[in-house]
């Protein structure tokens, strides 16, 4: 219960601050956000787009950790958790792709440019898609759990190359990519004023809590469903 209230407060705060705080070229008060040349109002997306992308990666790692756990102990609950995390990750991955594409349309002129970060998120989408196709193809529960776990680990080992390394070493259009005049590095490094940072990190924490809350809900629902099917 406490987590729900905290989550409600944090997310409301982030939405109000992210959309509502005015921008000015020379910020005077604590609530005025600085104007970033070339981004202007479009910079506000960082408070919502980056956390969704962050969650799609967190969910992916969570799913992999539970997959390893499953292969070690062979307990059905770990597979339920692994697939629940992957399901949420898939959703946040779609959200990150869509919000990114809309932003790209206004900032770069087209929805899709095969920027290294766009390639990475596309690979993540494909992995999630393949993971769920595999799950739906196997009927026997234990076999499905084992094969899905193995696939999720293989995918997790081969894809860091895309998600973490490639966006940093390739020149791209994305803010924070190599060749960005504002400096390369993770997006948070690039010229964010202290008040933007506060909103950004609050948003990251709020979204992570959101993920945790949705994750426990899904696991509970899946558990009940499994219980129901087994006729218990």
């Amino acid at each position, binding site marked *: 219960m406490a987590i729900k209230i905290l989550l409600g407060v944090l997310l409301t705060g982030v939405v109000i601050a992210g959309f509502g705080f005015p921008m000015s070229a020379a910020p005077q008060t604590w609530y005025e956000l600085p104007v970033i040349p070339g981004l202007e109002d479009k910079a506000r997306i960082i408070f919502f787009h980056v956390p969704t992308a962050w969650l799609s990666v967190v969910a992916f790692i969570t799913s992999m950790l539970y997959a390893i756990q499953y292969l070690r102990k062979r307990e059905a609950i770990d597979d339920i958790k692994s697939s629940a995390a992957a399901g949420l990750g898939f959703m946040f991955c779609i959200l990150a792709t869509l919000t990114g594409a809309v932003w790209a349309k206004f900032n770069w002129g087209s929805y899709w440019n095969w920027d290294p970060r766009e390639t990475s998120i596309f690979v993540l989408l494909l992995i999630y898609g*393949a993971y769920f*196709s595999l799950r739906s193809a196997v009927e026997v529960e234990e076999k499905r759990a084992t094969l899905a776990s193995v696939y999720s680990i*293989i995918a997790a080992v081969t894809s860091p190359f895309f998600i973490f390394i490639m966006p940093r070493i390739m020149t791209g259009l994305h803010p924070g990519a190599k060749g960005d005049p504002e400096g390369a590095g993770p997006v948070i490094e690039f010229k964010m004023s202290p008040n933007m940072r506060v909103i950004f990190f609050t948003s990251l924490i709020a979204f992570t809590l959101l993920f945790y809350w949705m994750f426990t809900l899904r696991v509970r629902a899946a558990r009940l469903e499994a219980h129901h099917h087994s006729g218990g």
Partner: protein
Amino acid sequence: MSATEMTPARFLRSVIAIFLKDWRSELRTRYAISALLMFVVTTIAIILFSLGSEGASADALAGMLWVVIFFGAMSGLSRTFVMEEERGTTLTLQLIAPASAVFFGKLLFNLVLVLGLNIVTVLLYAGFITGFVIRNVPVFLVTILLGSFGFAAAATVIAAIIARANTRGTLYPVLSFPIMLPLLLTVINATRLASEGAFFQEAAGEFQILISYIVVVVVISYMLFEYIWKD
């Protein structure tokens, strides 16, 4: 020393025995070989029809070569594991050989198939598609060689998964593509460099990526294969 202990020499012998078993049974039916070959011929014919009298840029043609190889590989490489399930020989194989020996035997078999497939594909492709030129042959050959290793490594472990999932054909490219994408992008890039006539040093970065990809995929497959293979 117990009778069941695995010395390196015995391990190698069982790997080779599994490879030879697959190879002989393949020569009897020629299922995978003919599937691969016909697939390559068909795809190149379609490319020729669709290009018509208009040529495409050397860049596009360098990339298209790997489209042929990717889908060609997807049409035949799952055979080695699917065959065991179809004939009901999986259980016997589980009993007589350690899982890792089965994995490396099948990997070797797929590697030979992919190398053969790539040689045939490149010869046909270079022969029939006139716009396709390679200005730096050594870079191209290394790309094909490393690319074949990478394809065989990723294709073998995914083949084991889909054979156990009883889904046969359709799921194979779906599961393989995300895993193979780092490999595909790198070989396409390296082929483009070879076709532009870049020096070996310029392509060295791509080769490093390919080698690390192969090592990572083989190690992780070796570690996880037992979970796929044993019920």
